[in-house]
C-alpha cells in the first residue's frame, strides 16, 4: 500500500507541467557595476525543477537519495549524473514539456562480455563530436581507470594508470602515486583530457587509443623576487617548512562548442580562477571587463562564509556566455565572451535555488542544471534553471548583435533596459549599435554612461573627423585670420609710431 502511495505521488509529481517562464521564488540576482558595487537585478534564471534522488523511479523502483554526486553531463536531452557515493551513473531524459523520466541506471559496464562495476565514479562525459558521437567516458575513480564506452555501455578501451618507472618523473605519473581520475572531457579529434585528483601539473592528456601523451595547461608558477630573497636567507630547515611554490590544481574542466577547454580552480589568491585553454594549453580567455572573472568582488564575511569565490564547475551556453559555479557561496556567475559579468544568482542554503556543496554544472541549450553534492539526507539535489523573460531578452540581444543585426539588437537592449536600468552591458550594446549605424553622438553618450573608454574613443574619432570636415572652412578661415592679424596689427602700430615721431 505504501509503495503504491509513493508511486502515485511520484506519478503526480511527474505529471505536473512546468511553464516555460517559471514564476517561482526569486533567486536574489545581482550584478557588479563599473565601480565594483553590487546592484540588484531582475532574475535572469529561475528554478523550474528541484529533483532529489528519491523523486526518481526506474522500472518502478525508487532510486533513493543521491550520495555525494560529483558530475553532470548533458547530451541531447539526456542528462548523465555521476552518483558517486552510490557507485552508479543515472541517465535522466528531459522532455520538451519540461517533464522528465529516468532512462537508465548504470552500475557497471560490459568488458569483454563480463560486467565490470564502477567504484565511486566521479566524472562522466558523452561525446557530441562527429566521429565519436554518443560514446561515453567514465572516470572510474577508485578503480584508477577511465573507461571509454560505446553508446551501449560496452568498453572500447580501458585507460589505466599511465605510470612507467623512469628516471624523469616530470613527464609521467610515477607508480607510487595513485591515478584518481575525477573529471573527463574529449575534444573533436578524440583527445581525452583528464583532471585527476592530487595532480598539479595541469590536465592529463591521452591519445585517441588511450596512450598517455603528457600533461597540458599547467599554469606557470610566478616566483616574486621577495619570495626568492626569503628563500635565499632561510635555513634549510626553514626552507623545508615553507609552503611549496607549486602550480595550481585544477578541479574541473569543460569543452566548449569550439573545442577549447575551460578549467576552474578553487585555490585561493589566484588571478585567473577560470581559464580557457587552447590545444597548446595556453590561456586564451578574453578578459575585457571592469574586473577579471573572479566571482564575487565583495568578500565580506557573512553566514559563516568569507574569502574569495571558489570555482568548482563551468559550462558554456550557446551564445558564448560561460557560467561558473562558486562553492564558497553557492552562486552562479554568468560572463559573456568578452569577460563582462552579466548576472549572479543562487546562494548558500537549503532552499531550492540555493546550494550547500556545489559540485557540477551543465547545460542543455539555455537550460542549466546545477548539482548540489551536499552530505546528509536530502542535501544532494539536482536543480534545473530556465531563462526568465528578462534572461531571454538578453539572450536575443546577444544573438542579434553577434549576427550583425545591430538595429534588432538595439531594440532588444532597449527592452532589457526597460526591465533593468542598471544593466550596464545594455548601454554598451546600444552604444555599439549606434556606432555601427553611424549615430556617433548618441554612441558617445551611451559609451560615456558606462565609462567605456575604448568605445567612446572610437565613436569620438568618427565624430571629430566629420565635424572637422563639415566645419573645415570656419576652422581654416579662423586659422588664417589668426595668422594674418598679428603682422597687420604690428605694421599698423609701427606706422602710427612713425607718424607720431615725425
Amino acid at each position, binding site marked *: 500500500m505504501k509503495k503504491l502511495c509513493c508511486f502515485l505521488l511520484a506519478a503526480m509529481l511527474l505529471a505536473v507541467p512546468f511553464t516555460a517562464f517559471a514564476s517561482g521564488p526569486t533567486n536574489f540576482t545581482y550584478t557588479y557595476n563599473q565601480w565594483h558595487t553590487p546592484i540588484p537585478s531582475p532574475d535572469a534564471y529561475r528554478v523550474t525543477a528541484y529533483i532529489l534522488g528519491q523523486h526518481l523511479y526506474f522500472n518502478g523502483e525508487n532510486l533513493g537519495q543521491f550520495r555525494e554526486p560529483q558530475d553532470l553531463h548533458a547530451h541531447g536531452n539526456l542528462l548523465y549524473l555521476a552518483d558517486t557515493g552510490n557507485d552508479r551513473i543515472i541517465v535522466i531524459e528531459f522532455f520538451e514539456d519540461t517533464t522528465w523520466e529516468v532512462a537508465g541506471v548504470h552500475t557497471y559496464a560490459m568488458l569483454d562480455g563480463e560486467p565490470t562495476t564502477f567504484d565511486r565514479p566521479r566524472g562522466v562525459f558523452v561525446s557530441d563530436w562527429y566521429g565519436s558521437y554518443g560514446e561515453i567516458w567514465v572516470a572510474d575513480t577508485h578503480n584508477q581507470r577511465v573507461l571509454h564506452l560505446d553508446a551501449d555501455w560496452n568498453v572500447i578501451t580501458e585507460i589505466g594508470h599511465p605510470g612507467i618507472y623512469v628516471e624523469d618523473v616530470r613527464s609521467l605519473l610515477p607508480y607510487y602515486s595513485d591515478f584518481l581520475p575525477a573529471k573527463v572531457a574529449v575534444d573533436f579529434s578524440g583527445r581525452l583530457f583528464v583532471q585527476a585528483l592530487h595532480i598539479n601539473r595541469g590536465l592529463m592528456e591521452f591519445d585517441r587509443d588511450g596512450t598517455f601523451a603528457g600533461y597540458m595547461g599547467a599554469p606557470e608558477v610566478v616566483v616574486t623576487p621577495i619570495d626568492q630573497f626569503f628563500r635565499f636567507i632561510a635555513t634549510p630547515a626553514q626552507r623545508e617548512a615553507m609552503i611549496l611554490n607549486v602550480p595550481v590544481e585544477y578541479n574541473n574542466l569543460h569543452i566548449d562548442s569550439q573545442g577549447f577547454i575551460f578549467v576552474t580552480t578553487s585555490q585561493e589568491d589566484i588571478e585567473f580562477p577560470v581559464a580557457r585553454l587552447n590545444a597548446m594549453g595556453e590561456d586564451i580567455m578574453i578578459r575585457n571587463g571592469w574586473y577579471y572573472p573572479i566571482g564575487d568582488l565583495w568578500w565580506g564575511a557573512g553566514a559563516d562564509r568569507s574569502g574569495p569565490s571558489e570555482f568548482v564547475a563551468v559550462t558554456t551556453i550557446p551564445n558564448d556566455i560561460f557560467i561558473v559555479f562558486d562553492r564558497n557561496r553557492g552562486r552562479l556567475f554568468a560572463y559573456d565572451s568578452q569577460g563582462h559579468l552579466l548576472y549572479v544568482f543562487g546562494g548558500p542554503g537549503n532552499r531550492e535555488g540555493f546550494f550547500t556543496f556545489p559540485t557540477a554544472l551543465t547545460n542543455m541549450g539555455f537550460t542549466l542544471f546545477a548539482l548540489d553534492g551536499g552530505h546528509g539526507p536530502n542535501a544532494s539535489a539536482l536543480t534545473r534553471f530556465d531563462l526568465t523573460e528578462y534572461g531571454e531578452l538578453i539572450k536575443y540581444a546577444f544573438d542579434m548583435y553577434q549576427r550583425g543585426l545591430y538595429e534588432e539588437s538595439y531594440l532588444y537592449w532597449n527592452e532589457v533596459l526597460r526591465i533593468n536600468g542598471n544593466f550596464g552591458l545594455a548601454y554598451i550594446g546600444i552604444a555599439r549599435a549606434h556606432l555601427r549605424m553611424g549615430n556617433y553622438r548618441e554612441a558617445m553618450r551611451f559609451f*560615456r554612461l558606462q565609462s567605456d573608454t575604448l568605445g*567612446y574613443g572610437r565613436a569620438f574619432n568618427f565624430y571629430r573627423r566629420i565635424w572637422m570636415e563639415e566645419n573645415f572652412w570656419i576652422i581654416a578661415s579662423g586659422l588664417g585670420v589668426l595668422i594674418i592679424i598679428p603682422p597687420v596689427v604690428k605694421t599698423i602700430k609701427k606706422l602710427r609710431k612713425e607718424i607720431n615721431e615725425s
Partner: protein
Amino acid sequence: MTAVKKRLQNDSFRHYLKSLKFSLYTMRRPLDGFWDLIHEKRGSMAAAHTIVITFVLVQIVYLTQSNFWWIDIPMESFSSLIVVLNIVLPILLFSLANWCLTTLFDGKGRIRDIYMGYAYAMVPQLLIRAAIVPLTFILTSDEVMIPIMLSQISNLWFYILILCAMKQIHDYTFGKALLTTIVSLSAMGIMVFIFLMFFAVVSDGMAYFYSLGQEILFRIRRG
C-alpha cells in the same frame, strides 16, 4: 564706474595686480623672479592667497569636469572639502616645517616668504591643469599621451620652481636648498604623526574621564 576707477588708482590694489602678474615672470625666470619676489617686494601675500584659492578651484574643476577617459571619479564619493585639505594642508605644513628647519640653518626667509614662494611655484601646474580640462574634450583616449606628458612636465616644473624658490628665499646654495627641502618633507611626516598621536591620546583620555564620570554617576544613583 568711478568706484572702479578709484580702486584702480588705489596704490595697494595696483600693487596686488602687479604682484599677481609677477607670478608669470617667476614661472619663466625662477632664479631672478624669486629673488625679486622677496627682496624687492614684488610679490604680495594677497596674490599668494589668490593663487592658492584659484588652484583649489581649478583642481575641483579638473577632477570633476575632465572627460571621463582622463579622470573618472564616482561622484557620490567625491568631496570638495578633501580637495581643499589636500592642497592647503601641505602648503601650511611645508611652510611651517621648512621655516622651523631653515631658521636653524641660517635661512633668511620668514614663514610668509616660504608660503609665498610655494604659492608662486604652483602657477605652472595651475595653468597646465586648466588647459588639460578642455583638451580632454578635443583628444580621444588614443592620444592619452599628450595630457600625461603635460602633467608630467607641470610636475617637473613645479619641483624646479620650488627648489629655486627655496634657494633664493633663504639665500642658499642649490645643494643646501635641496637638502633642506627633502628634510622638511620628512619633518612634515613627523608633524602629521605627532598630530595623529596627540589626537588619539586626547580622545583616549576623554573616553577615560567620560567613563570615570559615568561610573561615579552610576554609583551615586545606586545609592
